């Protein structure tokens, strides 16, 4: 049985139309110990701060909409269990629209720039195209990226260097492995700063979809060193 607990949530508030600088407000919440961070945020919104901006959709860890930083670590708010003391902030390094909501314009622009759909050499002939079951399974798994930007927010290389981020590398690798894609994904990855990655695997640890963008980067680097193509792996 979940037991009652008192929670203290320190939430970063910022409304660019009103505030000159972001500030933190602390809220005391009476909750249950099995609450998720999102439950706490919703409670604050419903009972204490009706003007708090935040976003969520599925509440099941499948959409990636509710990603925030809790005590400095990027997480999905709907999955992360609440803590007695929490500092809740919007994802970095994205511009903040208001409170916990970040502007994803740059993210969407990068996805568009990388043309992350298979670039065919010839017109689609119609009908199903044969694909190795093992490869199909792998592609399907790589396609389960939520685009939540948790990995990008946690990545130290993104913070320090000109690097688009692990999520984009994963999607580029996904396309590189796709049998009908003819785009030069390795070159795209290099242009997007793949070589700046520290190989620390923080993205692997943080990814809510159990993916490994770091492994995708390592595979790209291996391809760069030894040549060959992702299509034949």
């Amino acid at each position: 049985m979940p037991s009652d607990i008192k929670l203290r949530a320190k939430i970063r508030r910022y409304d660019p139309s009103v505030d000159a600088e972001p500030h933190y407000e602390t809220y005391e919440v009476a909750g249950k110990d099995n609450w998720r961070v999102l439950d706490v945020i919703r409670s604050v919104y419903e009972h204490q701060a009706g003007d708090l901006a935040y976003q969520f959709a599925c509440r099941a860890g499948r959409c990636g909409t509710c990603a925030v930083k809790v005590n400095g670590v990027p997480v999905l708010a709907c999955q992360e269990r609440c803590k007695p003391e929490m500092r809740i902030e919007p994802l970095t390094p994205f511009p903040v629209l208001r409170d916990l909501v970040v502007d994803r314009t740059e993210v969407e622009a990068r996805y568009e720039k990388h043309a992350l759909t298979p670039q065919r050499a010839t017109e689609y002939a119609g009908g199903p195209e044969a694909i190795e079951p093992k490869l199909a399974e792998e592609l399907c798994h790589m396609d389960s990226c939520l685009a939540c930007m948790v990995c990008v927010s946690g990545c130290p290389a993104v913070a320090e260097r000109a690097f688009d981020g692990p999520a984009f590398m994963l999607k580029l690798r996904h396309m590189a492995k796709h049998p009908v894609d003819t785009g030069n994904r390795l070159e795209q990855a290099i242009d997007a700063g793949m070589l700046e990655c520290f190989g620390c695997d923080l993205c692997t640890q943080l990814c809510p979809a159990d993916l490994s963008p770091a492994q995708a980067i390592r595979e790209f680097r291996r391809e760069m060193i030894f040549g060959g193509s992702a299509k034949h792996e």
Partner: protein
Amino acid sequence: MSKTALPRNTTRQAEAMLYGEAARKLHRVSGAVIILFVLVHVIVQAVRHAPIFATANAAAPWLQALQEQNWVHAILFFCIAFHTFYGLKLLAGELGFRLHYKTAFWAVVIVSALIGLREVLRYAGI
């Protein structure tokens, strides 16, 4: 990345140790310690052995004692081992060897700590 998996249990992610963060910082600190040691070592050896620095050497009798401290050796050997093994781990990953980040981190830390500990034991005559 070969299995299809539902999102894993991420309920305590903010409480977990961030292995990549720890490894990256330790790698940088250990690299800085090695560079610092080499610089200090060159200067100290010059002071201790070059006739031109004889006066400075006489004024700093603790230099000899400092370089015989077991903890100095332990830290230095840990840093050299960690920096080397973690660097090799990164290289191995890029050459195609798949190493789990958590296992690799602890393996490198434990091996490096044992190498550092060996210095302490050596000074203790064990």
